[in-house]
């Protein structure tokens, strides 16, 4: 199929305003009469609040109000479980919980007021390890619950006892992963304006999920959704991170805006952002795997324990994705998987790019290499003998047949791109000197979109103006991933207009239909279908009208480049004249688009069903050099092959791959938010290391296209798959190079040299 706009690396539609600095971000917003607010956060990970004295702060210069939990109409919110406090009421559950807030004429005055607030705490013992938290008799953190368990997802298939009995080799291994900061460039920022254009509150800012934020603000204020308007601004990165933390911020600002009757702005410093924001879940994973000596897997038994921190946040769904994908893309007859989340007094954990997959993939793809070594097979060979192919049945019993199962293709193409075979052989031989090279790979399958988490549907609106210009609205949000461009390309393709005629409009919850959250790498797949639906409805009307007007059959007519053609290459009309005339004859030139995903199913008791309606497949390979004398690790080259169904914008797909590979590299070799007894050690980028451009390997992106029957033009997902594979590929490469198998992330100097991490103050 020849495309005009789709499948082309067109320029981003928001590039100009971003590179010229014209784009306005949350912190850039100014409103007349605006106040500034700051939050006082506790340093205690677990304590009862005995008394809060605010009188002195209220009397400070410029201060227009000081508020505590008692001023919040409804203090509890949450996307899944409503257990997160807007401001801590009786108890703080994590170091970083807000306890009071001050609003003043300037930010400095608000900050000065915080210093005058006196809070008396009674410190409580804390629980800082989910493995302690799950023990019987552990201190209960949420007294209204039976225990500290946030969630437990079981999955049962076949009979693992029987499976292990059939095995010639059984391996049992433990893996651990760390807390990770999202490290978005722009710290959180919101402005709430009261009583604007017939809304009780309008919320502007750095918001990943405008509808989730609207839900939270309306729930906290106890007002109707229609009274709350959320307008998304340009956002300086999110990666799953600007959901609950920004909702809490918006709710706080909304309370203060209504109390003062003035716009209220809140902008986090980097340190505040580190202290307050949720993190990626650390996991403790135990894997038991059985295989025949021919290398056929017979059974897997998996337990994954996630640290949820003080609140449930997204833990129930994060660990659900883990339970679906925990075995990796391998056929196993007998599976017993349990994933858990537990409350602790650590920073709370939530959505982050990957969402429960990077942890299990690190473990399971490391394990496959360990098993291969045990069996005397090459890593690729063991994978080939077990990985999914067309018609394979997953651990949850889903038959993979609706889309192309392309594991073999992605693996082969990644291997080719990095010259895997030659390097594998070369580095498998004895290497002289301390510096050793190695190469390692990992593969994955990933369910696209929300799956059985929630109803998976999205909407769009397209409006053709009388001059032929096309305005496109979506209920999903641009988070930097390129959504505006992708959706504009889809609209232009269907309507046959140039990209310059398409204007993508900012998301405003008062105009655009609720489409759920922009998460789960679902925007192109679900939202793109909704755009396509609206565009096709309008195209249908245009073709009907044109067929009547020019007396042609519809299939003889073609819309292309902003003209109507007769199929013989003759122009009949311009798009603008044609659609203008339609408008003038009273034809509705706007359309809603809607897309609801194909049916899925999930039995929560057994962990069986068809959890996602389609999957993507990926393979990443890392080539590393390990200095076995000093523990220094350099990732030299990486190849990343991803089946995206169809690349709506191949350049954008490459951008996602480069970014995801780098984030995965940081996860794999250096990033770690150190939390000691609930307290974050180092709350800025001085202590928290993310990779620099000098740490960036040569990355070879390989786009694999097997159009999906359910995707718009066959497109699926790319955002998250790019991050989930790197850590295992690197760990496998390090083991190949040095012989040292590291089962904890990150692979820092100490782990690479002496096999264990060292911590300041520790032994």
């Amino acid at each position, binding site marked *: 199929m020849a495309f005009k706009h789709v499948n082309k690396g067109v320029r981003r539609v928001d590039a100009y305003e971003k590179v010229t600095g014209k784009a306005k971000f949350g912190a850039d917003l100014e409103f007349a009469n605006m106040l500034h607010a700051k939050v006082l956060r506790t340093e205690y990970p677990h304590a009862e609040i005995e008394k809060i004295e605010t009188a002195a702060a209220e009397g400070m210069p410029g201060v227009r109000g000081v508020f505590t939990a008692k001023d919040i109409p409804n203090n509890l919110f949450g996307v899944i479980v409503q257990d997160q406090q807007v401001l801590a009421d009786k108890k703080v559950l994590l170091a970083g919980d807000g306890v009071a807030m001050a609003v003043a004429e300037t930010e*400095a005055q608000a900050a000065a007021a915080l210093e005058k607030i006196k809070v008396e705490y009674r410190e409580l013992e804390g629980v800082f390890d989910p493995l302690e938290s799950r023990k019987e008799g552990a201190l209960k953190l949420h007294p209204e619950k039976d225990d500290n368990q946030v969630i437990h997802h079981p999955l049962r298939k076949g009979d693992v006892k029987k499976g292990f009995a059939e095995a010639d080799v059984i391996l049992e291994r433990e893996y651990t992963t760390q807390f990770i900061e999202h490290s978005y460039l722009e710290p959180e920022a919101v402005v709430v304006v009261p009583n604007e254009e017939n809304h009780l509150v309008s919320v502007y800012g750095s918001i990943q999920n405008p509808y989730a934020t609207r839900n939270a603000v309306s729930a906290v204020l106890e007002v109707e959704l229609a009274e709350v308007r959320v307008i998304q601004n340009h956002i300086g990165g999110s990666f799953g991170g600007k959901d609950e933390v920004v909702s809490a911020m918006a709710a706080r600002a909304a309370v203060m805006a209504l109390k003062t009757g003035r716009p209220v702005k809140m902008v986090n410093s980097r340190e505040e952002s580190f202290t307050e924001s949720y993190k990626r879940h650390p996991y403790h994973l135990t894997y038991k795997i059985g295989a025949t000596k021919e290398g056929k897997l017979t059974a897997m038994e998996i337990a994954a324990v996630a640290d949820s921190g003080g609140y449930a946040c997204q833990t129930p769904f994060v660990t659900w994705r883990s339970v679906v994908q925990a075995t990796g893309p391998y056929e196993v007859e007998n599976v017993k998987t349990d994933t858990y989340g537990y409350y602790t007094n650590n920073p709370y954990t939530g959505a982050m790019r990957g969402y429960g997959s990077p942890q299990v993939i690190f473990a399971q793809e490391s394990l496959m290499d360990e098993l291969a070594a045990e069996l005397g097979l090459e890593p690729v060979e063991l994978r080939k003998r077990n990985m999914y192919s067309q018609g394979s049945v997953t651990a949850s019993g889903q038959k993979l047949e609706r889309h192309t199962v392309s594991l073999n293709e992605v693996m082969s193409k990644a291997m080719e791109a990095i010259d895997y075979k030659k390097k594998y052989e070369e580095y498998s031989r004895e290497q002289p000197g*301390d510096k050793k090279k190695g190469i390692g790979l990992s593969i994955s399958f990933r369910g696209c979109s929300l799956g059985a988490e929630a109803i998976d549907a999205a909407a769009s609106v397209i409006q053709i103006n009388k001059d032929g210009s096309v305005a496109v609205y979506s209920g999903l949000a641009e988070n930097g991933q390129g959504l505006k461009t992708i959706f504009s390309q889809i609209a232009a393709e269907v309507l046959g207009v140039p990209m310059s005629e398409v204007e993508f409009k900012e998301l405003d919850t008062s105009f655009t239909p609720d489409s759920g959250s922009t998460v789960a790498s679902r925007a192109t797949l679900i939202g793109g279908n909704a755009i396509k639906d609206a565009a096709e409805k309008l195209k249908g009307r245009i073709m009907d009208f044109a067929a009547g007007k020019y007396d042609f059959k519809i299939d003889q007519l073609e819309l292309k480049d902003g003209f109507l053609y007769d199929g013989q290459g003759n122009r009949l009309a311009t798009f603008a004249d044609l659609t203008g005339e339609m408008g003038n004859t009273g034809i509705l030139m706007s359309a809603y688009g809607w897309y609801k995903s194909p049916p899925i199913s999930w039995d929560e008791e057994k962990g069986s069903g068809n959890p996602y309606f389609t999957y993507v497949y990926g393979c990443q390979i890392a080539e590393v050099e390990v200095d076995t*004398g*000093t*523990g*220094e690790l*350099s990732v030299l080259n990486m190849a990343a092959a991803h089946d995206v169904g169809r690349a709506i914008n191949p350049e954008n797909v490459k951008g996602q791959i480069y970014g995801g590979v780098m984030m995965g590299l940081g996860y794999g070799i*250096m990033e770690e938010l150190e939390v000691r007894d609930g307290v974050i050690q180092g709350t800025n980028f001085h202590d928290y*290391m993310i*990779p*620099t*451009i*000098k*740490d960036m390997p040569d990355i070879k992106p390989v786009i694999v296209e097997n159009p999906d029957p359910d995707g718009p033009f066959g497109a699926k997902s790319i955002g998250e798959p790019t991050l989930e594979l790197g850590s295992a590929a690197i760990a496998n490469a390090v083991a190949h190079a040095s012989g040292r198998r590291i089962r904890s992330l990150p692979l*820092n*100097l*100490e782990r690479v*040299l*002496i096999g*264990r991490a*060292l*911590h*300041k*103050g*520790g*032994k």
Partner: protein
Amino acid sequence: MVEYQLLRAHSLEEVLEILAEKKKVQILAGGTDLLVDLHQQDPKFENIDYLLDITDVAELKGIKLGPEEGEIGALTTHAELLSSPEIKEKLPFIGAAASSIGSTQIRNRATIGGNLVNAAACADSFSPLIALGAELVLRNKGGARRVLLEDFVEWPNQTVLKDNEVLEKIVFKMPQGEYYSSYQKIGRRNAVSISRLSLTLLAEVENEAIKNVQVVSGAATPAPVPFREVNKYLTAKTFAEIDPAEAGEIAADEMVGITGERWSTPYKRPALSKLVERAVKDLLEEAGYNG
């Protein structure tokens, strides 16, 4: 809120005048450490009334390497050090250390004098200069005194520089005859990285034997110091008598002797030992010894 008055001096004389007249003056050079602390409202600034910007003072800039002696002005930036052809030719380890510091932006601002006066335990400028036996010229209105660099730091972030003094320049004797040097650094990433360990080796060689040698580490000990035992082991030995691995072990023992067993020792011990071993091995190889 930290409050101070900003002064700017345009000559060394003016700097010394201000230092003599006023109390509670903090000197501002490249600002890459100072401004960060200032933005964070570090309590140490509560005791500061004046910030004295000396970045315009030309007398404090420049690199002069003579046949016998060399000097580097305190305000010389790391970027200037690493792009200097003279440094590259005669003292490559100084350039290597400079290039390992921070990022391009930091190297363009940060000065060698600032790095020394700030005296972080992990500061990268110390070990190469200590290996040179460098002295610091500390000047006040009354005159100048010279302090051996290894005696300059009393404790991390604490030096012997007096309130009325400014670090004018770093002076040293140029290595003579046939000499070899190396600089190595281990960090957690490839840029904007604080040293976990660094090491300089500088050796003068004669007749397949070591005449003079300095092995100095950074970030291994609270203040950078020459490894005297290693130096003793290497000095006056012929190449054939030297076992690089043994030199490494001696250095590691010496480090632990100074610091005691710390949380980081299980890593630093083998890593430092390896750095020393490599430096010695490289020296022997470069000197053409094939053992």
